[in-house]
């Protein structure tokens, strides 16, 4: 890894390296329910098992909690973002997840959170068939909604959702002197990302502990543990990338609706995580040859 200059924030060295991110497609689904509890349940379930596109149908997360005044129907809600490599795969993931996690969940409704997007994937257009001929539709303010009869009344779902070209795979890797201090720094980073619009951190609680590298000594595996960041392999790894003082490292991965939001998310995450007990913050990349977007840490902080 190239190291041209030294940058320190609150005593934390920011390595002169870059995060390598990819072009993905993104849909925003706004979920509402009778109260916050059910909206939260729906949003968490809807975005569950959506950590990495390597083995999930989509990368998904809750963008933010919405107040009643911010939702289309005036009920409590959550804004969620889902990322996929193609329109087709993303559309399938959104429809499947809506069918299994929102239509099934008491009182929910699902709306398009990107009504201005030119590209669209069907949602209610497919799910309506669950209504077995009893479904009805309404056009309100030029947007079509499907009313699917269910046991607590109707599941209201928008006909289609907008899709935009987005950026996935922004990241930072932070290294700490103690496991507890490192975890707290990672939590600060995730809390900072939660305040940035248009960005999600799709891993559990926003944090990854199993940073990976491409390939494996086992032919069947496409990815395997990144020994360069494993504290238990400091002596066995070909080249450790851990700071001499570090005993623990966490990665925070970000997906955003555009480059600017990922850049801002990374910046806020670094600023929040940096501090005593965190000697080094770096980022994960593949040498810059695979991803379309390279976010240099020093540049996002500039």
């Amino acid at each position: 890894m190239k190291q041209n200059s030294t940058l320190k924030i609150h005593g934390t060295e920011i390595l002169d390296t870059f995060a390598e991110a990819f072009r993905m497609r993104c849909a925003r689904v706004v979920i509402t329910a009778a109260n916050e509890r059910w909206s939260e349940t729906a949003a968490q379930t809807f975005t569950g098992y959506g950590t990495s596109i390597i083995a999930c149908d989509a990368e998904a997360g809750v963008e933010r909690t919405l107040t009643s005044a911010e939702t289309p129907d005036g009920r409590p809600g959550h804004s969620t973002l889902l990322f996929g490599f193609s329109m087709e795969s993303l559309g399938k993931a959104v429809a499947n997840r809506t069918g299994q996690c929102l239509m099934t969940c008491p009182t929910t409704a699902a709306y398009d959170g990107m009504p201005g997007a030119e590209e669209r994937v069907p949602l209610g257009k497919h799910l309506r068939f669950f209504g077995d001929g009893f479904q009805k539709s309404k056009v309100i303010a030029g947007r079509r909604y499907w009313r699917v009869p269910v046991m607590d009344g109707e599941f209201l779902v928008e006909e289609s959702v907008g899709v935009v070209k987005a950026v996935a795979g922004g990241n930072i890797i932070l290294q700490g002197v103690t496991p507890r201090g490192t975890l707290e720094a990672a939590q600060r980073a995730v809390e900072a990302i939660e305040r940035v619009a248009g960005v999600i951190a799709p891993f559990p609680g926003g944090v990854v502990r199993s940073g990976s590298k491409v390939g494996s000594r086992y032919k069947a595996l496409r990815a395997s543990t990144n020994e360069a960041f494993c504290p238990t392999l400091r002596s066995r790894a070909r080249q450790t990338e851990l700071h001499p003082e570090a005993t623990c490292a966490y990665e925070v991965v970000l997906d955003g609706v555009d480059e600017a939001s990922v850049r801002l998310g990374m910046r806020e995450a670094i600023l929040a995580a940096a501090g005593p007990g965190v000697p080094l913050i770096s980022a994960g990349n593949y040498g810059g040859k695979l991803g379309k977007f390279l976010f240099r840490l020093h540049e996002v902080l500039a």
Partner: protein
Amino acid sequence: MSGWSLRWKERPAGPAAVIDGSGLRPDRLGTLAWKDVQSAKILVGRLERRLEEIFEISPLDLLEEGPGLEVEGSTRMVRLGEGMAHGVLKVRGDAGSIQGLLGGEVLVSGNAGPEVGLGQRSGLIAVAGRVDGFVGRHLRAGTILVSQGELELPGLGMRRGTILALGGKPRLASGFERDGIVCPTWLRLLARRLGALGFDGAHEFNSLLESGHPLESWSGDHLSLGRGEVLFPA
């Protein structure tokens, strides 16, 4: 949003003759240039008149999207909304009849005459006051909302669509059957839309929904397709 506001030249309520409201389509007039709107034709009694002879015309920038038209109404203004496919038509005051809507939104701040929504195929008609009998006769689809009064035989022969009778339990024909108590989420979208359009009955409608007041739902007309619904406060 582009559009025009039309006010009677003859105060207070326009010509004494019947006015053919089908000439007042927002999807036709809303996007026209000033000169073309002035010279657009409208039937008044048996005579074809230029719009500028009947109305004071001024630009409108009240509504949020699509072509719009805001007209001063009259009980002599008939066939409003006929053939209209999109856009917003706001009637200040009363309307004679509203029928044949293919899409878009017609909002009436006063009362309306008989057979509101006759043969409507899509779109929304909302009347802040009362209507005469037989609202939604032969309704194909779409939504009709009436804020006040008890409706007399709504939805006769309706196939699909929704009639919202907010003034109380209507007198329903034999082709309607009670489904039960409902609180549909889509009505909240409708209430917000009506609020955004400045519909006079929007606030009361929204309050009714926010209070959690249940609505009674009847389906019909079962002598026709029977996929329509009449809703009113339980």
